């Protein structure tokens, strides 16, 4: 593999700015890497070769002409295929949108274009972002670069695997209950869920509107901060978009100091249910941070035990409504009933039966149930109250601590197929990430080391609008650990090019 693909986005940006390398060279190196390894990893659903190279060539031309360019100009990026793009298909990992081309760009895509970042293609995901393993993609599972027999997390397994496999330095993800952070955790990469409203949702195909956030996926904390600055900020097309300025997140990442920072350990997000290896790496990280001058405090969030239940009521409820539009009338696939009268009702029923996979159907039915007459108060209404309680827990915790810390996920990457037939076991992967979505607070997952040769993620959470604290704390932990490891965690990942070609993966 070209050494160019090993560099961080920040380093590539420096090299591009110094004209040590061209954007076409960088972009081509990543396209080559995709060609080399993606047959095994299956991180990409679409590779955008022509447009990516054209944008790269434009950047090189502009740079040669002495134009002032955005920081990440010429640095390529992969896009989770839940985000709509003009010129590239958008499937949401679903058969129902197979072949669909959006006539409009998501706001974040407009920002990526304005930042002159070549888009390498669209990455794989659990269908409509519903899952924790990317096994629910209609286009085959993505595989974990650390072990091709294991899951890369989900729903954004494609984006996480793409950066972990050096197919892209950066990617966009979406996080509804952990879909950026949990894949980062199990692939040894970095992922950030910004404060709800910090990044526009316009053009991200909605799963659960009140929980969804777009965020950065990368290999370093600084890279996520740089990308966050590109995609963040107010958007008049999103009514829930915050008007706050994005702030200097990269600067926060470069602070390099946690002295006096109060880091709260959430009592409920460790111990029982968490693998011993995960707990061990977590405890080590705490010690490192303490050694670096952080003040470690214990906080309790007793209502977090209801968070998973509340999430699995609110998310499917909103999803059941958000996904109603996929009916074979205006776009996407239309499937006709096999027999009987050809009415639009039956065509919708047949289209949705054939177009949606089992997990999507499960959540739609669950959400329909939770919202239906006679159950609303008991389920949706109660869940919205739990949301208030979870927020109160966060408020209390943040009164004692500047950031909170926990393992990102209770386990390392499990084997493909291991939890596919046990939805409940699959849902438990999100237990540590979900509270942040319910409360709208930001979170980051940074690599915390290996357990039995598989990555463990450490999660920081900050109060709403205090995303900068994540980058400060995250970068310090990253530096401390890399010092200990003698380099980035991903340097320890197996050489994918040497891996046997996986056949019949799909």
């Amino acid at each position, binding site marked *: 593999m070209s050494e160019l693909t090993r560099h961080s986005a920040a380093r590539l940006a420096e090299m591009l700015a110094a004209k040590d390398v061209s954007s076409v060279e960088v972009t081509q190196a990543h396209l080559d890497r995709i060609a080399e390894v993606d047959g095994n990893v299956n991180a990409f659903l679409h590779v955008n070769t022509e447009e990516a190279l054209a944008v790269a060539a434009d950047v090189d031309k502009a740079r040669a002409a002495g134009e002032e360019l955005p920081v990440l100009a010429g640095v390529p990026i992969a896009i989770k295929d839940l985000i709509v793009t003009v010129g590239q298909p958008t499937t949401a990992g679903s058969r129902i949108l197979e072949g669909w081309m959006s*006539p409009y760009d998501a706001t974040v895509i407009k920002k990526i274009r304005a930042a002159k970042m070549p888009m390498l293609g669209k990455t794989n995901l659990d269908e409509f972002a519903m899952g924790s393993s990317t096994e629910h993609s209609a286009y085959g599972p993505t595989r974990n670069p650390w072990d091709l027999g294991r899951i890369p997390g989900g729903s954004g397994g494609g984006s996480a695997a793409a950066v972990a496999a050096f197919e892209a330095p950066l990617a966009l993800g979406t996080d509804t209950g952990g879909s950026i952070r949990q894949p980062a955790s199990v692939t040894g990469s970095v992922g950030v869920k910004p404060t709800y409203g910090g990044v526009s949702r316009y053009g991200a195909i909605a799963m659960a509107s009140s929980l969804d956030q777009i965020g950065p996926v990368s290999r370093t904390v600084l890279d996520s901060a740089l990308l966050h600055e590109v995609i963040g900020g107010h958007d008049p097309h999103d009514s829930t978009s*915050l008007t706050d300025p994005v702030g200097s997140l990269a600067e926060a990442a470069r602070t390099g100091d946690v002295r006096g920072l109060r880091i709260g350990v959430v009592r409920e997000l460790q111990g029982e249910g968490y693998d011993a290896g995960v707990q061990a790496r977590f405890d080590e990280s705490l010690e490192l941070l303490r050694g670096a001058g952080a003040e470690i405090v214990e906080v309790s969030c007793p209502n977090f035990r209801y968070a998973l239940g509340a999430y699995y*009521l609110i998310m499917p409820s909103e999803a059941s409504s958000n996904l109603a539009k996929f009916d074979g009338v*205006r776009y996407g696939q239309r499937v006709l*009933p096999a027999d009987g009268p050809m009415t639009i009702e039956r065509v919708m029923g047949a289209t949705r039966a054939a177009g949606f996979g089992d997990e999507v159907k499960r959540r739609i039915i669950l959400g329909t149930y939770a919202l239906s007459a006679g159950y609303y108060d*008991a389920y949706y209404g109660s869940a919205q109250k739990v949301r*208030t309680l979870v927020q109160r827990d966060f408020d209390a915790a943040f009164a004692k601590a500047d950031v909170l810390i926990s393992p990102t996920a209770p386990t390392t990457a499990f084997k493909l197929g291991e939890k596919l037939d046990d939805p*409940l076991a699959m849902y438990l992967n999100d237990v540590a990430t979900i509270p942040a979505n319910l409360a709208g607070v930001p979170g980051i997952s940074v690599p915390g080391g290996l357990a039995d040769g598989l990555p463990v993620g450490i999660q920081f959470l900050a109060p709403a609008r205090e995303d900068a604290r994540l980058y400060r704390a995250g970068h310090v932990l990253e530096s401390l650990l890399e010092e200990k490891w003698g380099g980035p965690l991903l340097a320890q990942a197996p050489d994918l090019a040497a891996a046997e070609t996986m056949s019949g993966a799909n």
Partner: protein
Amino acid sequence: MSEINREAVAHLARLAHIEMTDAELDRMAGELDVIVDSIKSVQEAAGDDVPATSHPIPLTNVFREDVVGETLTNEQALSGAPDSADGRFKVPAILDEE
């Protein structure tokens, strides 16, 4: 146990416009029953005095001024349509009324 049985799922599938075979209904009823059982503890979490939260970050009065913006062309609008005619989306007959 929750009330999710096969008939309930069949009703929900009709509401959600998803055709399901008998086998699917049975399987889904079993799965949902387990899921609902495990999450219904939310009902005991909060008392009547706890308000509901719909939006994680509370905002109010986010408006757009009444100024015409960009529209799609007819061609763009119909570009993804499974079927169309006369500049409009074409759908099979609707029989559930009149």
